[in-house]
């Protein structure tokens, strides 16, 4: 049964067949990941931050909802640093705010961002007018 549920959300988080990211999917994810992070608890989240083999959920939290990370989570401040520009982009969804967010990510990762962020940069690019 669990696999069927997972299949339903494959479009959101399944790394085997990544579907295109969209704002509506991210909004749906935000609520779910808020609950997920509450269930896991701060203590375990901090432990997860020190691991290489992390749950998939953490990738999404770090990339899009870093405010859900507790104080003491490894790289919390780093992940938070592009959140203001991402939030602005989410509100305005235009080329200017997109470029600002993209520059912030590219600066952090020297033009080689992690796969999920690269996907987001490609998928969330505003349509040119």
């Amino acid at each position, binding site marked *: 049964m*669990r*696999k069927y*549920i*997972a*299949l339903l*959300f*494959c479009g*959101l*988080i*399944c*790394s*085997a067949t990544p579907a295109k990211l969209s704002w509506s999917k991210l909004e749906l994810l935000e609520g*779910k990941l*808020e609950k*997920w992070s509450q*269930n*896991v*608890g701060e203590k*375990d989240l901090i*432990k*997860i931050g*020190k*691991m*290489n*083999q*992390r*749950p*998939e*959920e953490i990738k999404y939290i770090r990339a899009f909802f*870093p*405010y*859900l990370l507790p104080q*003491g989570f*490894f*790289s*919390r*401040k*780093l992940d*938070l*640093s592009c*959140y*203001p520009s991402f*939030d602005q982009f989410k509100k305005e969804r235009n080329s200017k705010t997109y470029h600002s967010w993209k*520059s912030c990510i*590219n*600066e*952090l*990762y*020297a*033009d*080689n*961002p*992690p796969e999920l962020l690269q996907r987001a940069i490609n998928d969330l690019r505003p349509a040119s007018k």
Partner: protein
Amino acid sequence: MQISNLFGVEVTPDHSYRVSNGSIETTTGDIIRPGEFIKVTRVHQGWAFAFQRLDNYLRPTGPMLFASRNWVEAAVTDMSIEEIIRMVQGAGDVVQEIVAPRVPCPPRDDIAQIILESVAGDLNTGAVTRSPRPVARPTPAATPTPTEESFAPISSIRPVPRPERRPTRELSSFLYKSPADADSYFACYKNSNDLHLDYETRYRTSIRRMAQAYGQQTGGEIPQDDVTTLMSCLIFRESAQWRGGTSSTGALGLGQFTQTAREQVRDILTYNPSRTRSFDDRVAEQRSEREAGRLSSAELRRNLGMIEAERDNHDRKVALKELWNSIPMTNRPSASQINSSFVADNDNHEAVIAMSALMLRNCQIRMEQDDIEMDARTSLLACAGAYNMGVGGFQQNAIVRNGAQSLEGWIRNLRNSGDSQSAETRNHLVSVNRCISGGENFPPCGTGPDYCTALPMSNPCTEDASPTCVGECR
């Protein structure tokens, strides 16, 4: 809801599994390697499995361990009944052979029977959920026959001994060369007399002036001489021994500035905080909004995270702008002047070196903000690595666990990271480290990804060899 690897085994509590498709990392840093057996006890907090290692008799042993569910599911396979029997029989023989004089083992047929009954009981009660995934069976040739020669275990089913922990380099052992010794190093490994002369007559002064301002901003916490040596070695490396030019990736000049890095510098130089209200006031306002019931706790958390990020970004940019303004320059460029042709021109060495200093300091401030504990010298070397793959990339791929504060640790993590820039960054780190290390004069690395990715050094540049000793540079 668990979002799992759809192609792994469905792991069920109270069942035993063999680790076979890669290792499992636990929250305590233990690594469960292929060939080991585990018994999953329960799901922990929704995200992890709690489990124990199994000994040769498939008995749980050692402390309870925790690991991400998706990684466990991807790494384990079910055990067949035949496999269990074979393992216990084989294990009993081996253990008996080794420890029989002191610890008599129960007859192996009895153990196998107990397990068989136990598994059969589980099957009868429907407690065992078998994965539809076929379990790899041993080939007949690999199946041990009960002869004396076959007492040696099949290699794959034995727990793999952990590699010995190599001593990590003490923080204090990052001994930097003096700037004068670094100059000898550059002379030894120079690319050409003309380029080296440029360093001696122009760049060296710019680097030392920059280092003075850098040291002052840190209140002397970072010795000026260390900054001088590190920055000299970094630019020496980046510019291919003071040449500069354009790299295959479009990075330009002495500091090899990419378009993104140029934008970053312009962003710092044009930063002009317009907010009139303090961050503390904004935090207080959010809290009172929450108290008044106009904000949910989730909204409060999000808004506080936003303010925290803005405050950190503000503090960092203000400090960097101050550093920029404190570095002496004959011709200080405006932000708009910093374009591709500007950074490609080695005549702009003063500004380009100051820009490189901003990159280095930006990295150090970010690591301080994230409470990554590192002494100043270690942090400088780490930031030389981050110069190559970005602070985020370096934190994620090299530092990873907060404990990785040694060059060996970074190299190891980078090697295991699978990141596409990993080899280049390792090469870069080793090369810079060879340059800065006091009392050593090992050659700089070439720029190919296969050079120098191992730490052991060779071919030291001696006085006798100078100036023909060019190591791997040529």
